């Protein structure tokens, strides 16, 4: 069974992430471990040390715990694999990383509201947490319908980093799956290609190779993509083709993630984004 760790607090983004995770768990049977951290790095400073500090921390957890538990209890009847939260006080990123090191999780989930200003989403991928996390990351921007998913691949995508993890994470999910081979361009050089026409004008071998390989690897795991398409456009232009999907899956390189066009494309996606590292 897949084990996922979800960060929860009292914000809307967390509520959305929890609802989405529960929908996903309904399809996959995924085990959902929640974690709440009273962030001392960005929140209040502890008053003193020793006993004073520990009493203050306990107080923080009690008041936060009531609200978080209420949220979990609301969802629990329809989401039996949702577990009680692990609660701690400390620096959010450090505590999450510590939990991920201590317990082997297959997926980290957190909410991140879809914003017109993309810097918040882009900034996540520069944080210590995202840079050091070893499992795939699911950033839930909206709840949406999880009926259709799309795998985004580029010429440089390492399918061995992507497909087995995708399969492992979403094994058993009842999803209609498409593959989109994106050829990302700088804004202003706009063109849209689909099917055979794309084959003629882009590098035929690459397109053939990567899509065929992806289909083959997916086929071996029991998935059969409904549609395969090639789109050549700027990230903002491609995003319209992604509106219908409740889940967008892709792969990023740790070294170049922050400057990559793929990350920019993912920042425009309004639904949930599953990122695997390569």
């Amino acid at each position: 069974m897949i084990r996922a760790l979800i960060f929860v607090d009292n914000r809307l983004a967390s509520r959305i992430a929890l609802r989405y995770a529960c929908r996903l768990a309904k399809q996959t049977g995924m085990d959902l471990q929640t974690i709440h951290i009273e962030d001392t790095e960005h929140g209040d400073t502890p008053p003193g040390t020793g006993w004073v500090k520990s009493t203050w921390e306990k107080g923080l957890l009690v008041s936060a715990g009531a609200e978080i538990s209420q949220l979990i209890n609301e969802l629990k009847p329809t989401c039996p694999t949702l577990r009680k939260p692990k609660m701690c006080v400390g620096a959010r990123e450090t505590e999450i990383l510590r939990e991920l090191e201590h317990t082997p999780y297959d997926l980290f989930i957190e909410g991140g509201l879809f914003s017109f200003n993309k810097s918040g989403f882009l900034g996540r991928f520069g944080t210590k947490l995202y840079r050091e996390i070893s499992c795939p990351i699911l950033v839930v921007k909206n709840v949406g319908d999880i009926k259709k998913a799309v795998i985004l691949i580029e010429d440089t995508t390492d399918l061995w980093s992507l497909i087995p993890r995708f399969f492992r994470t979403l094994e058993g999910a009842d999803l209609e799956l498409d593959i989109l081979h994106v050829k990302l361009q700088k804004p202003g050089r706009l063109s849209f290609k689909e099917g055979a026409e794309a084959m003629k004008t882009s590098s035929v071998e690459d397109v053939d190779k990567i899509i065929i390989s992806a289909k083959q690897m997916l086929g071996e795991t029991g998935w059969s993509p409904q549609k395969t398409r090639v789109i050549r456009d700027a990230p903002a232009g491609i995003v319209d083709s992604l509106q219908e999907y409740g889940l967008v899956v892709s792969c990023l390189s740790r070294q170049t993630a922050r400057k990559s066009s793929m990350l920019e494309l993912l920042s425009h996606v309004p639904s949930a984004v599953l990122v695997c590292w390569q």
Partner: protein
Amino acid sequence: MRILVAVDRNPYSANSVEVVAKLAANTWANVTILGVLSKGHSQSSSPVSSQEWNMEHPLPKALQDYQKTFLSHFKEEECPYTQRDFGYELVERRKGVWEELYVAKSARKNLRARIRMGNPAKEILAEAQEEEMDLIVIGCDHSSGCEWEGLGGIPQKVVNDATCSVLVAKEEKTVNRIVCCLDHDLVSQQSLEMINQLVTLHNAKLEIVGLTEGDELKIEVERKMDAILQYYTTRGLEPLIEIVELSSLDAFISQEAKWGLMALWMGKKSILEKVFPRRKVSKLIQGSESSVLILR
């Protein structure tokens, strides 16, 4: 619910009537189709005075056609606007004086056609005010910058001065997405329901926009948005949520207005009223390729 659809004899008005008919099919609203004879500003005929016009004027004929179009959206046996029974009824003719009259009864809902004479914007607003309308629907010619009966600025004036909600219906685009910018404090049940109806009517996707002054929404705004999200989710819609900083609102609205119907909550105390003033609303209505709904 009471809907006023303001019409002239242009194709965009026929489209407005279609939109209202579809809305009314779901809501069974009381509907008034209002034609305005403009004194001295008629597009195709010479200035008209109240003594000069009669039933031969093209506008009454157009109103009759619009009524037929409207009613064609209902099956005869189910139509709530059909006059069914005739009978005697005591009617107060003037204060303290009653008279038994042979009247048509039991149309469950009203469909009225009215003509007023004067300045179109003023007459539309006066009718809406006098009859306590909940929604005004008005079309306009998008190709000429949202002109109405050959005049500029009429839908804009109606939108800015109305005390009720106003839908400026543009005819040429299919509505795939309805983008709602929330007034965080004053979201009425009626506004939510109106959006619900429009989403159903157009089979469109719904996007709820939360406005923020900094990086994050305020907790109370988030709670309001969560309540709205759940309101629509329980009704089978799956709205998207998007956060927009107030400083980016102009850019956001001009970008989104290309793709979908913009719905702006603009109550008197609305945050939008402050950051998106009348001239910007007018500009949006003039320039938008899609319909615009101002909710109050």
